[in-house]
């Protein structure tokens, strides 16, 4: 007797295709999580052989006390004003040598962006989250200025260019092209953030 009433067999020939489709989908969409953070260079332990004399007006001092209060250039300041103050200091351009700066050319503030140094001092008992927030604002000041110049020169944000440049998946040709641009913007506003040893009291 022939098997008339049995269910017909499901054609599984295309199963492999579906499987590969899924595989490729997951391969493309999953990314292994990467950490992110604020990059910083520590000063070398041996002091430089020749003493560099930095004029007081080229240093922007930021002090954080153990309660998380900010003392910026000897004045108490709110955290939300810090970025603006740092930006104004960086592009102050007192000696007029920086033709892309839009600062006020205040004689009592920094000469030009390459000479401007931000000095961050903190108490040992400062909370780490406060410390990071302040660092974030200061890096933000640099990024704001760099973004502005990058927009003017290349019509895109510096942060975006930099992350594309640092991304290993970016093709080499694009990276080489970006390298010079990123370097140029970085040289316009070099990040000079000094972290002195913390004070004990």
């Amino acid at each position: 007797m022939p098997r008339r009433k049995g269910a017909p067999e499901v054609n599984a020939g295309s199963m492999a295709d579906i499987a590969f489709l899924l595989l490729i989908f997951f391969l493309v969409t999953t990314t292994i999580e990467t950490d992110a953070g604020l990059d910083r260079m520590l000063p070398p332990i041996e002091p430089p052989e020749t003493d560099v004399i930095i004029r007081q007006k080229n240093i922007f001092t930021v002090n954080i006390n153990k309660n998380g209060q900010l003392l910026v250039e000897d004045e108490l300041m709110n955290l939300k004003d810090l970025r603006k103050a740092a930006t104004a200091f960086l592009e102050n351009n007192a000696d007029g040598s920086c033709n892309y700066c839009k600062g006020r050319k205040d004689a009592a503030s920094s000469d030009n962006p390459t000479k401007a140094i931000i000095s961050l001092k903190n108490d040992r008992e400062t909370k780490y989250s406060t410390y990071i927030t302040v660092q974030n604002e200061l890096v933000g000041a640099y990024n704001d200025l760099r973004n502005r110049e990058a927009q003017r020169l290349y019509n895109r944000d510096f942060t975006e260019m930099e992350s594309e440049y640092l991304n290993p998946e970016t093709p080499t040709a694009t990276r080489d092209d970006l390298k010079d641009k990123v370097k140029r913007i970085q040289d316009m506003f070099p990040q000079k953030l000094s972290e002195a040893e913390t004070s004990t009291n």
Partner: protein
Amino acid sequence: MKSIRNYKKTQPAISTAALPDIVFILLFFFMTVTTIKSETLLVDNNLPQANQVKKLEKKDRVIEIYVGRPNQDLAKVLGSEPRIQLNNKIAHMNEVGPYVLQELAQKPDAIRNLVTVSLKVDKNVNVGVVSDIKEELRKVNLLKVNYTVFQGNSQ
């Protein structure tokens, strides 16, 4: 008679030809999403938030240092002072330098001067500990650090 009726009801076997494919799919999926080495955290590690971040792209160029209060199980033994965790164990401040150098020695020559130290510090820790670690890192001349944070708006 009975046997014939039984034969009629038998269902055809389900083809298992695609089973290997499914298994491979699962295998590949898990291969992709699992990170090879996930360290067991012995300290609280609630990172602060910041938004001006740079990504740490290459895992092989990173040395991680965790700082935080010992977690609940260990708090009875170690107390609540912030501790440093290096590679699955709690360490003392003066072990930081040797540990970092040892990790550095395991990296290939070509990337040795590109190595970044990722500081994963709990947000409730005082900066003093972090400064001490930075001092240790300066002593062994490893100057590239990254304050690892969660991406997001600070405050």
